[in-house]
């Protein structure tokens, strides 16, 4: 298991390398001059040119890329063009905000989505099921920023119950969480429903009932645990999605998270900050994926045994090696 985790973490390196290259390339070709942005439109041509030279913007692409990667290997994400602060300092302030919102979003989505999905599956083709399916379809098709605006219109503007923007206390979280999680709730509900529907038709569910087990235990212990793998998969995707989706949602609610930081950085052609933010988000996403994959093994013994098979293979391989050695020795005789 530990070997597996180590392998997965090792595999993140090429992924991050690829991402850094693509982002660097994109930023390189993006029109706009950071030096000009910093000095303003009225700045002298010579001043701009001098700043470009100082920032290393006149160097070739590969020279800049390798310089960046060299710094990165030493743990240095660079310096923000606008604030002159280390990029990591800027990100480390904003990232927890985004992560916190994403965590609550996914928690809320699981708490609402999974039970509704189960109920919908158990009561298939009833009114409850029909209503759930329609609402889920609505949740998936509706753009979250539009839903967010409707919510703000109703609860902040009309009723004045909840704040519309910023993040200064618990009540500020309510609208963002509801609007961002709507789609996740819908997807998790649908997945939980279809996964449960498949599982409750299995023979082992009847075996459990034939034991005289309570229906509640049959559903939660025997059915839900088996239905969990697809649900975990979407939860992981949704969590990653709500990190990436922060770029849009944080604009709507003016949440001071990494999404807003990134948008502002792109506007200012603040290359190091953009690249750094993307890399950190990618790393986080990879970690979430790894965590979900480990959860699979925790839930399903069949997957667990696959992870430990590495060891067995190695043993078998050693066996083969000694057998080959033996054969070679025999031949020599």
């Amino acid at each position, binding site marked *: 298991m530990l070997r597996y985790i180590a392998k997965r973490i090792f595999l993140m390196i090429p992924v991050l390398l690829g991402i850094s290259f693509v982002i660097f390339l994109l930023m390189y070709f993006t029109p706009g001059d950071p030096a000009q942005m910093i000095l303003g439109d009225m700045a002298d041509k010579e001043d701009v040119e001098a700043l470009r030279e100082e920032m290393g913007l006149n160097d070739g692409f590969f020279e800049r890329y390798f310089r960046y990667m060299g710094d990165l290997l030493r743990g240095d994400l660079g310096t923000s063009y606008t604030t002159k602060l280390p990029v990591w300092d800027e990100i480390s302030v904003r990232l927890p905000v985004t992560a916190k919102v994403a965590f609550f979003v996914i928690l809320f989505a699981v708490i609402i989505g999974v039970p509704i999905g189960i109920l919908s599956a158990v009561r298939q083709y009833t009114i409850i099921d029909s209503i759930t399916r329609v609402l889920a379809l609505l949740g998936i098709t509706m753009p979250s920023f539009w839903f967010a605006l409707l919510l703000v219109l109703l609860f902040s503007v009309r009723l004045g119950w909840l704040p519309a923007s910023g993040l200064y206390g618990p009540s500020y979280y309510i609208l963002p969480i509801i609007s961002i999680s709507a789609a996740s709730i819908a997807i998790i509900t649908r997945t939980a429903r279809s996964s449960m529907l498949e599982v409750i038709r299995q023979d082992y569910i009847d075996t459990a009932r034939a*034991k005289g087990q309570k229906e509640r235990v049959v559903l939660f212990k025997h059915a839900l645990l088996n239905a969990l793998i697809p649900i975990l998969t979407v939860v992981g995707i949704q969590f990653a999605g709500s990190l990436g989706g922060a770029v849009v949602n944080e604009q709507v609610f003016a949440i001071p998270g990494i999404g807003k930081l990134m948008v502002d950085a792109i506007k200012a052609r603040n290359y190091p900050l953009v690249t750094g933010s993307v890399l950190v988000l990618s790393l986080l996403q990879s970690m979430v994926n790894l965590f979900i994959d480990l959860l699979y093994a925790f839930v399903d013994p069949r997957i667990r*045994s696959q992870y430990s098979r590495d060891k067995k293979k190695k043993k078998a391989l050693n066996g083969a090696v000694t057998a080959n050695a033996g054969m070679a020795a025999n031949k020599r005789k």
Partner: protein
Amino acid sequence: METTKKLLEIKDLSIHYFTEEGVVRAVNNIDFELMRGETMGLVGETGAGKTTTARGIMGLVPNPPGRVVGGEILFEGKDLLKASNLEMRLHRGKDFSMIFQDPMTSLNPILTVGDQIAEVIRLHEKLSRKDANLKAAQILEMVGIPAERMSEYPHQFSGGMKQRVVIAIALACSPKLIIADEPTTALDVTIQAQVLELMRELQEKLGTAMLLITHDLGVVADTCNKVAIMYAGQIVEMGSLEDVYDNTMHPYTKGLFGSLPSLSMKSKRLVPIDGLMPDPVDLPTGCPFHPRCPDCKESCKSRAPVKTEVSPGHYVRCLRYE
């Protein structure tokens, strides 16, 4: 004496499925009895209503769309159809239990086999977790699996071993009745014999009655005292093993035997039964077997036969014997 009495008595039981295509009449007015410790074979083709009958007794007919539309299921004289959900739950696993057809899918893949056996013990016996595990280990040994394998998961067992575990679950609380729904169909022939032998052995040891559902007349001959032949949701012939095997009456039963290869008789060809089982949504008028019956007369097409006792304990549902 209590021990000589009937264990299970089914009277006029009908189970239908209400689907969009129409009413599927899976089980129609069947009656049979099972004494304590007795083994009865319920034989029929796929779709004859054998499994539905079994599920009816267990109270596990999927509802919707299935529903018991009439009759009585008396277990030790008590009508199970009138029992509450709670009462049924207390019966299931303790007084009667079921072995399902496919051992590959009958075990929960994410629980250890030990847990799955201990589960039924803890449901019906007031034992601590430790004692339940101890008993589960004993039962596992009883079905021929070393107790060390308790902590293994179903995917680590072969098909025959899995069926042994399923049998262990079914027998864990020493039920009075076991319903085995084609317990060996999904297994290799060599394993089939082992599993049947094991079931027979344990059944004798525990004095359990068994309703063995199968389409294999050979298995019935090996295991059962009594046979009921089912066709299109009805029992067309029922009696002791000797009655049905040596004094076959119903044309359908004769057809079943005719389609079996035999070593002793040098027959030219096997004689299959022409045609297919009728659609249970749209059963033929009169005798449901008449479209396939070689002895069909005009009256068979309009008049439904009733259960007729041709000799003590040997019943046939055919107009020729009325």
